[in-house]
């Protein structure tokens, strides 16, 4: 059969093959009448490389047939070409589009490993639904001569914690293909294969940066108390890439000893790129010393190091260093100031709020955006300050202000959202307003949205309203 269907509870699944013709749909349409509680029609289109107009018409007639009963029609696994054809015919709004990998045969899934954009997704799907069949197929693929299939089968076995595959995966580290070597190292790390640790250490010096990074990540997963010392030795390498990898590995290990080594590295390091990475990595240590270190790096001579330090403070928190951060906000180094304001804003004190309000008008636009966000966490009443910002000529400022109002006062935000959705010239602001209305669903919101749908020509607004109203 070119069109097959099956019913489960209140849902129908239809599969269409490339050879289907309009005559194959008769029984499908009739079947809907036999399911009074029908809620969803799912149409699997994975085998359609292209779509004939007669098939397109049949799909639309399915929608017409069940749409009046508020039954959703979901198109599954739609190819690019079919999607484009439906777009040309202006039919996208009629359907919900989803991917359902369970409808693919195991061989089809493995074939999809050739598409780098979806390979990871496929791997995650297989590992989450791992079965003996999947195990056998992955074992077969792990011995394939096709390096992409081999790479992703190995990654999948690692993700699935398939310890029976350990030996096969170890062999992958001897491959001439770096992608296979990298995959094997990662998978063995996920499997906690301590026996491979010495080899991981050797791979840290690999010329292939992705292999070296994978080695660092896997070392951190199987590390013990002796490993920081080994990494310290590697940190003395003349190769800056190795020093960067070591910094990353130490931050993943994340103990006191690792922290001490990374600080020593920073003291000695002269390469700006490595210094920046070291500062970024220090922010991953959750300890007061890390905050102190980042504060001290705010005065570094390198702009990128200073910015990394300020951004890192957003991760570690300020731990009583508010004043030191406030005094670094200046109009010259705008991104340093941006990160500093974001760090202050996480728990914005009355003192910080007062200062940020004072400097607002002197600030560049993107710093203003960070200030408004920071002030949304301030303890004092910002209603007047925010109200003025809603009239700013910059659309981002109006949008961020609306978000800030929503954080502090939902009732006001809803009222402002209704107004902005009607009037604001920027779709960005109207979209934010629409998001707030769709979450809060105030009384009469459907009427408001229906009215807006008739007059607002922006496609993003149109589609969002259609999804909120289910039309």
């Amino acid at each position: 059969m070119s069109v097959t269907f099956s019913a489960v509870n209140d849902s129908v699944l239809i599969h269409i093959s490339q050879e289907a013709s309009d005559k194959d749909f008769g029984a499908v349409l009739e079947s809907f009448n036999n399911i009074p509680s029908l809620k969803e029609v799912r149409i699997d289109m994975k085998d359609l490389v292209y779509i004939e107009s007669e098939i397109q018409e049949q799909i639309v007639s399915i929608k017409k047939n069940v749409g009046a009963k508020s039954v959703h029609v979901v198109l599954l696994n739609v190819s690019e070409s079919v999607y484009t054809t439906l777009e040309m015919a202006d039919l996208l709004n009629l359907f919900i589009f989803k991917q359902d990998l369970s409808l693919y045969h195991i061989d089809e899934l493995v074939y999809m490993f050739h598409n780098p954009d979806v390979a990871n997704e496929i791997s995650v799907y297989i590992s989450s639904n791992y079965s003996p069949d999947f195990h056998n197929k992955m074992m077969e693929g792990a011995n394939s001569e096709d390096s992409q299939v081999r790479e992703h089968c190995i990654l999948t076995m690692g993700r699935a914690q398939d310890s029976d595959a350990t030996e096969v995966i170890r062999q992958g580290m001897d491959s001439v293909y770096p992608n296979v070597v990298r995959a094997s190292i990662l998978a063995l790390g996920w499997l906690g294969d301590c026996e491979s640790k010495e080899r991981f250490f050797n791979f840290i010096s690999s010329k292939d940066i992705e292999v070296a990074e994978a080695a660092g990540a896997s070392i951190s997963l199987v590390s013990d108390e002796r490993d920081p010392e080994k990494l310290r030795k590697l940190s003395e390498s003349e190769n800056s890439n190795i020093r960067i990898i070591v910094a990353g590995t130490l931050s993943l290990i994340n103990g006191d000893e690792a922290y001490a080594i990374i600080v020593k590295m920073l003291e000695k390091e002269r390469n700006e790129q490595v210094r920046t990475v070291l500062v970024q990595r220090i922010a991953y240590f959750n300890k007061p010393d890390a905050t102190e270190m980042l504060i001290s790096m705010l005065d570094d001579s390198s702009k990128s190091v200073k910015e990394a330090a300020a951004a890192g403070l957003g991760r570690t928190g300020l731990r009583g260093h508010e004043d030191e951060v406030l005094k670094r906000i200046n109009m010259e180094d705008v991104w340093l100031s941006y990160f500093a304001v974001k760090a202050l804003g996480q728990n914005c004190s009355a003192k910080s709020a007062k200062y940020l309000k004072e400097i607002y008008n002197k600030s560049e636009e993107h710093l203003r955006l960070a200030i408004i966000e920071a002030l949304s966490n301030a303890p004092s009443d910002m209603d007047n300050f925010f109200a003025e910002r809603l009239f700013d000529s910059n659309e981002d400022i109006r949008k961020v202000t609306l978000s800030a109002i929503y954080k502090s006062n939902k009732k006001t935000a809803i009222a402002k959202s209704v107004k902005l959705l009607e009037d604001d010239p920027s779709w960005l602001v109207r979209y934010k307003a629409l998001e707030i209305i769709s979450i809060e669903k105030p009384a009469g919101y459907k009427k408001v949205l229906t009215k807006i749908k008739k007059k607002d020509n922006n496609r993003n607004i149109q589609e969002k309203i259609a999804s909120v109203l289910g039309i």
Partner: protein
Amino acid sequence: MLNNTIKIGDSEFLELRDIIYKQSAIVFVENKKYLLENRLSKRIQELNFSSFKDYIYYLKYDINCRKELDLMINLVTINETYFLRERPQLDHVVKVALPEIIAKGKKSIRIWSAACSTGEEPYSIAILIKEAGLQSKASIEIVGTDINSEVVEFARTGEYRSMSFRGAPNHFVPTYFKQDNVIYKLNDDIKHMVKFNVGNLTTLGIGTLMGKFDIIFCRNVLIYFDMDGKKKVIDMFYNTLNSPGYLYLGHSESVNKLSTSYTVNVFGGGIVHLKQ
């Protein structure tokens, strides 16, 4: 180091999609969200940012935003491809299209690989032309263009890794490449058959700039343009083609509803759009 993938919110996606569209006319549909996440997360973290929102501000407000826009477009437009991809169309060129053009007495023939990415497509065409011995029958110029300046630079080097050969037969690599550890270097005689340039298909006047062609390849690219962009590109190709002219699109692409000027010719394993 194995950076985490940063998730993009709905409104951030729509705004970034708008920015990319204005910059390149490329459209990212909703189901391509993951692609932006995969390709931009590393860059966002390099800049010390932790969200797409921060990155969008950077693109809009930084003093070097123009440079960053170019870099971002490069990151999101890399299309991974491989030698002899969708081979039946390539075979059609050397077995049908070129012999037909040569039979009409043409001595100088131009072929355009209009979104050549890292160069596998134009080099595949060059190799098949050499294998078919067509160089002795006419002067054949192959030009590869891509919007992404980085991939064009890569294509010029003619150096590849094993993944570029997943569609190639066993003799292919040893015949046309020299292996240097994990790198495969294309032989100079093939390399010299192809010229590369950076070019955006939706730029006004690109057709005039490129000159006339007898054969155009533009595979798996139209899917990234909206209707208006698709129409413009297809019309530009028509004006750029000589008569007869041959246009090869990706398997999942068609000029259906975009142009009535072409004659569609279906052959075993593919479709060619003809300008008579």
